[in-house]
């Protein structure tokens, strides 16, 4: 996500269009790209989802294993979220340990899922203090055309919602679907100069001054937010972005359910 430079020409073009409420790909300013989700793509995973958000393409796999709980939450399962920005997906991604961009991305996706209490973590306890289910969300970014925050989040939610816990194979009871109780939806907007638009494509994201990701639940309540980039927002802009996130969240939520 350390972006290549966008030409001044492109920048001017995108901004001029946006000033009249238009975008290069024909969308309205508050219109997200098409989301398509394919579930159970990977049979070696306990759950998986392939998400395309426009041309951004991510594959998420869920692996479940049995481990120890954290000492401070002895009755709860454990959640671990990683994002790999593999160099396949973009000429700007490099192999190696995760950089700040990838770490922020993984942590924001994780917070949306964790703070919305999407999965009832207490039902992932096997033996208090000793054995709980550990849930790994591994996000593989395959093709990068902007707005990974939302694409990765949709992948994580959809994959979890399709996950079957392999309890039998591990000798700890019968298999069961992950106990999903809430449906967080992440919606990201960016600001280019004074214009705010939702679900930025790569070109739009490259020239954005500020970014705000808002995760809402099925009640429209806010579960997580993250502002990024070096620009700023006014309070009014933030309120409008939240309202957009609530509306777009309602549209996308049904797609994430199995």
């Amino acid at each position, binding site marked *: 996500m350390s972006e290549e430079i966008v030409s001044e020409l492109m920048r001017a073009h995108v901004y001029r269009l946006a000033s009249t409420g238009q975008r290069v790909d024909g969308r309205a300013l508050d219109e997200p790209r098409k989301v398509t989700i394919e579930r159970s793509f990977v049979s070696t995973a306990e759950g998986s989802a392939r998400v395309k958000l426009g041309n951004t393409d991510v594959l998420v796999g869920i692996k479940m294993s049995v481990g120890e709980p954290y000492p401070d939450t002895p009755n709860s399962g454990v959640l671990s979220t990683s994002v790999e920005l593999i160099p396949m997906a973009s000429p700007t991604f490099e192999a190696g340990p995760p950089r700040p961009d990838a770490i922020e991305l993984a942590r924001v996706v994780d917070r949306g899922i*964790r703070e919305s209490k999407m999965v009832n973590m207490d039902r992932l306890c096997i033996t208090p203090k000793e054995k709980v289910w550990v849930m790994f969300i591994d996000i593989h970014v395959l093709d990068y055309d902007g707005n990974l925050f939302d694409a990765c989040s949709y992948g994580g939610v959809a994959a979890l919602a399709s996950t079957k816990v392999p309890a039998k194979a591990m000798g700890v009871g019968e298999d069961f679907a992950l106990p999903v109780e809430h449906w967080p939806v992440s919606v990201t907007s960016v600001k280019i100069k004074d214009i705010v638009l939702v679900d930025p494509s790569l070109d739009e994201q490259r020239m954005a001054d500020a970014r705000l990701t808002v995760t809402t639940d099925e009640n429209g309540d806010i579960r997580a937010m993250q502002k990024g980039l070096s620009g700023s927002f006014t309070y009014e802009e933030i309120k409008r972005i939240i309202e957009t996130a609530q509306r777009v969240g309602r549209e996308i939520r049904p797609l994430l359910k199995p």
Partner: protein
Amino acid sequence: MEDIEHIEKKVKLMDASGRRLDGRKSDELRPIRVEAGVLRRADGSAYMEWGGNRVLAAVYGPREAHPRHLQDPARALVQCRYNMAPFSVSDRKRPGPDRRSVEISKVISEAFSSVVFAEQFPRTSVDIFIEVLQADAGTRCAGLSAASVALADAGVPMRDLVASCASGKIEGVVCVDLNKDEDNFGDADCPMAIVPRTGEIVLLQMDGHLTYDEFQKAMDLSIGAAHRIYELQRDALRRRYSVTLEDILKESPPLPPPPPSEEPLPPIPPEDDFGPEGI
């Protein structure tokens, strides 16, 4: 947001009269003390006590960015490193950056990027170091607010100081400036930072559960608190330089270096353990 510690127990965080465990009202800040110019080697520095938080901020630069391939020919890089001392939390933290520190460093760097007049110093970096010596929730807000003073102390030209304060929700009540217990057992935490003169929001994060109305209440509390922080930041600079922030900002860019010490340093109140040369 402070995910270092979680202890699972039921804690009653607010009494019948709406007072919090430490006696504060919902819109009340913890005691805060800030001091500018506390380190010798750094170009600028500040020390802040904020409730049980003790943070130190230092600034070097603008100086030549290195390695060279990171230099931006158009502007200075504004880079922050937020770090927790191993002994700053109950369970010792291993030295070195963890994922949480990396994220916080990133959002703080971004918060300052639009405030510093970076275009005046191409190919350089402005390096901000925040050390959390003792943590009690809200370290990123304390660190950011201290760093702001350190930037001014270093004479880095800026549009304004940045002031930061979190709000959150405990037992259904929106409150400002959560302490560690409130953060651990509360329902939401929402750190933010503003440019006080313009009201621009340069940092915003949130986790937990807030309705839209609660969020607005939280923001209002944080914005009010940030303005109080701003006063404290300005006081610290005034004590240090015997000039007002307005004097400093109106002359910038560039900010003249502090007068070498022709002005006598202000007396330090007796309960204050550190003079202007200590932290």
